[in-house]
């Protein structure tokens, strides 16, 4: 009798292994999380806060930046930096948006979710 190259049991075996791999792959995927605001000072992350929870976060440095998370967006509630550019930026909530306080070396960037653009030139 001529041997079949692939038998039924081979197919079952393959399907089982493939299914097992798919399962492992699925559970190790990074799960989509809610949006967060990532606050950095001099390049180092100092806080990662969920946008869904109202909160106040203060960064001290050469100057002071007080971030307020309210109703799913974040803004500078208070600052003593000289140009107040960070305050003028207003509220941010979309992925990729950022509040920048150059005098204090502080940034707050929205992470999570799909950003509309990958960068802004200007």
């Amino acid at each position, binding site marked *: 009798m001529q*041997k079949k*190259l*692939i*038998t039924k049991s*081979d*197919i079952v*075996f*393959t399907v089982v*292994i*493939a299914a097992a*791999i*798919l399962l492992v*792959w699925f559970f190790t995927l990074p799960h989509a999380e809610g949006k967060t605001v990532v606050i*950095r000072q*001099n*390049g180092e992350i100092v806080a990662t806060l969920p946008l869904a929870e109202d909160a106040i976060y203060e960064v001290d440095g050469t100057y002071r930046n007080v971030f307020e998370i309210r109703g799913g967006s974040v803004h500078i509630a208070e600052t003593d930096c*000289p140009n107040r*550019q960070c305050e*003028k*930026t*207003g509220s*941010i909530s*979309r992925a990729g*948006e*950022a509040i*920048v306080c*150059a005098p204090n*070396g502080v*940034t707050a*960037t929205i992470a999570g979710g799909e950003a*509309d*653009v*990958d*960068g*802004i*030139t*200007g």
Partner: protein
Amino acid sequence: MKRIFPVLLAACCLFAFTSCAPALKTSEIFAMDTFIIQTVYTDDDNVIRQNNEITRRLEDEMSRTIATSDVCRLNAAPGQDVEVSDETAKVLAVSLDAAADTGGAFSPALGSVIAAWGFGTEDMHVPDEEALSSALAAADYRTVTLEGNTVNTGGAMIDLGGAVKGYALDKAAGNLKAGGVESAIISFGGSIYALGKKPDGTSYKIGIRDPEGGENDYMATIALDGKFVSTSGTYERGFTENGVYYDHVLDPSTGYPVNNGLVAATVLCDSGILSDIYSTALLVMGAEKGVAFADEHGVDVLFLTGDKQIITTDGFAEKYGLEIKNREYAMG
């Protein structure tokens, strides 16, 4: 032996699903008076760190405010021969060539004029005419000589602020490629380089800042793939005195902020330093001359006028997939 096929198949599946897509790594540092933001797909931890080191090294060499920088040493020794680093010499050489090429619309020797206005300091003000005309008289790039690494400013004050970020971007881009990176986007204060496509296969998408909006607002988007983009705008780093707004983009021929109806120039080309330099030069030149210059030099430009007209080089919209997001703007 007969299970060789299924096992091979299973192995293939394993590789397919766990294929080693490089990890996403990000970095944000403050240098060169701006934010240096990197998003890089790589498994090599060194690439981003090296880029940050390159940036800080170039800042140390060419900053106008770090006393030990080549630029500060040059400005402290007017009329004397000063040895500078290879990189400072390179940036100065490209800048001087570009100054001649743009008919002086860009100048690396505007330091005295910038200082007269106080741009980059907390004391920005309109200089009195006498102070400005003497500052302008001292701001001739043609007095600067460069031989090898020896520079003599001839009394002009050097400022490489309009070129060094673009040069750093060139260096960082080279480092990404040398490190085998296939997908990355790096932004040096709004001058951006995108390498390859995103892992999902789409091009990196760049917003062009809306001059009337905030820092996160853009009026249009373009796709960027393997090119450098840089924008100069009159809306940045200016000040208001007696109800009049003065922007930081100075016309080297008058010493005053540009006032030609344009509010921004976005330049795309294959070189970081030239995109940086040309964005300033073309904004100073004005739309008509600027488009002609861009055509001649094989670069692309998008101008925004104060009355929300968009003026570009031919075929810009198709080439970069321009999508206008703010409908107040229209192709002029």
